[in-house]
């Protein structure tokens, strides 16, 4: 069977909500049924067939071709299957994603992996702000799953993150790990200002030492055996993180202003 493919017909002027176009919601639906599904486009409602050319039949694997950064909520509430985006995607990619896999070959707007619960999200280029954060009004961000960013990430990565793993091969912006509750964020590039701001718990695994504020305290250089378990879990992913082996790290703890017990580990210390 061929992957169920949505090819965008024209350039989008407004955002389109793609949350209904997931493997689990399209399971056992015919091409005709899918073409007649209504989607929100700006402040109006259109049919899928108005925006996309729909081909293929395997709803377990959905492909978006010629996509746009105005295509929001791709993979929202996804609980099975795979989505491939051959280009850029909009905001809220993988919103509340529960299982399955999303692969975006381009860049993604803000709030990717927002409220994510499980599954694997891979972005080959850059991602906007609030990666793995919680949606407005929620006190918890990402609660599980794995996110791999091949490029750079914006500000507030993992804001209020509760659980899960974010691996960024490039740089991360300001306030990385802000208000983080638990989980792990790895960054191989540089991070911006105010890293670990109001961090409660969790781990920031950094290649380069950032400029840390006064309420993040140096605990010295140590060999941490648990890193072997963590690095072992990276092995299955296609990322430079899978090459990490040294358990020797410099450990910072904070944010003391928040009575936080989060840790920043600087690799290869």
């Amino acid at each position, binding site marked *: 069977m061929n992957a169920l493919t949505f090819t965008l017909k024209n350039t989008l002027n407004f955002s389109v909500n793609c949350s209904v176009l997931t493997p689990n919601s399209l399971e056992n639906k015919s091409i005709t049924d899918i073409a007649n599904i209504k989607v929100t486009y700006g402040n109006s409602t259109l049919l899928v067939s108005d925006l996309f050319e729909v081909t293929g039949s395997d709803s377990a694997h959905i492909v978006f071709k010629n996509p746009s950064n105005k295509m929001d909520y791709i993979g929202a509430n996804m609980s099975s299957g795979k989505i491939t985006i051959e280009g850029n995607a909009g905001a809220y990619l993988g919103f509340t994603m529960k299982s399955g896999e999303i692969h975006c070959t381009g860049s993604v707007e803000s709030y990717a992996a927002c409220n994510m619960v499980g599954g694997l999200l891979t972005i080959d280029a850059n991602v906007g702000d609030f990666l793995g954060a919680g949606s407005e009004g929620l006190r918890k961000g990402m609660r599980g799953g794995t996110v791999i960013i091949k490029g750079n990430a914006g500000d507030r990565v993992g804001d209020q993150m509760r659980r899960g793993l974010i691996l960024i091969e490039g740089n991360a912006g300001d306030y990385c790990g802000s208000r983080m509750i638990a989980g*792990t964020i790895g960054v191989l590039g540089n991070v911006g200002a105010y890293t670990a701001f109001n961090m409660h718990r969790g781990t920031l695994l950094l290649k380069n030492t950032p400029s840390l504020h006064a309420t993040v305290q140096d605990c010295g250089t140590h060999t941490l*055996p648990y890193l*072997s378990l963590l690095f072992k879990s990276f092995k299955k992913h296609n990322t430079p993180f899978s090459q990490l082996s040294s358990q020797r790290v410099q450990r910072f703890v904070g944010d003391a202003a928040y009575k936080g*017990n989060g840790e920043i580990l600087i690799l290869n210390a």
Partner: protein
Amino acid sequence: MMMLLNTIQIDDTFAEAFNMRGTRVIITAQNLKWAYHAANAMTGFATSVIGCGVEAGIERELRTEETPDGRPGVSILMFAMGSKVLMQQLETRMGQCILTCPTAAAFSGIDGEDKISLGKHLRYFGDGFQTSKLIDGKRYWRIPVMDGEFITEETTGMVRAIGGGNFLILATSQPAALAAAEVAIEAMKKVPNVIMPFPGGVVRSGSKVGSKYKTMFASTNDAFCPTLKGATNTELSPEIESVMEIVIDGLTFEDIALSMKVGIEAICNLGAESGVKRISAGNYGGKLGPHLFKLHDILNGSNS
């Protein structure tokens, strides 16, 4: 029917075993020396549920690629008559033997529908500085200690198991009985999923149920005591001067049966010059334990 294996008589009898609850824990450390220190402490004073609460032993050494953290380690098996005792004993021994042992870490060694605490409660030793990590669906606790960090998985599995498989080695002298037992233990150590919980794997004080003393619910197995041959209803012929018992606990019936077969065959391979005359087994008439390990069937490969 009479069975002889390389001139050694195999009694037409059976070992009688009981249902138990079991678990496996993987203990790793900086090197095998410290893994064994931790494991030996954890499985110390765990020969019999009668007085120790649990029966425990080292199952085998693990290669670095077999352990979760890639360090040298050993796996231990622990058995108890009930889940409550097993949980209590495991937590106590984790706290006093593994937490305290330099560089040691503990991980679940078995999956099971029932989960029991490994580090779930021990984490409070961290006094608020403990942190957890959920890695590949398993929760680990990192507890800061004076040598660095103590790592333990939160829970391990608890499974239904069998305890009390056994056989008796009847020989013409004490050295002969012990030498044969040692050969059997070395062979049985290669069988997975079983332990021989007594010192060196061998027990010299097999017991019978009951006693002339009201406070004792088990007492010496006088029928197999060589110095009482003339004083009791003995099971021993005149030339038998010493009897050693090997007790086996295992995860399944098949594991114990295989272990018994390997052990008995190792002894019988020694032949008549070993001084071993008979192999027998301890039982209670088949009335107490639901699992009967018939020696002839085990050696014929037809036990089930």
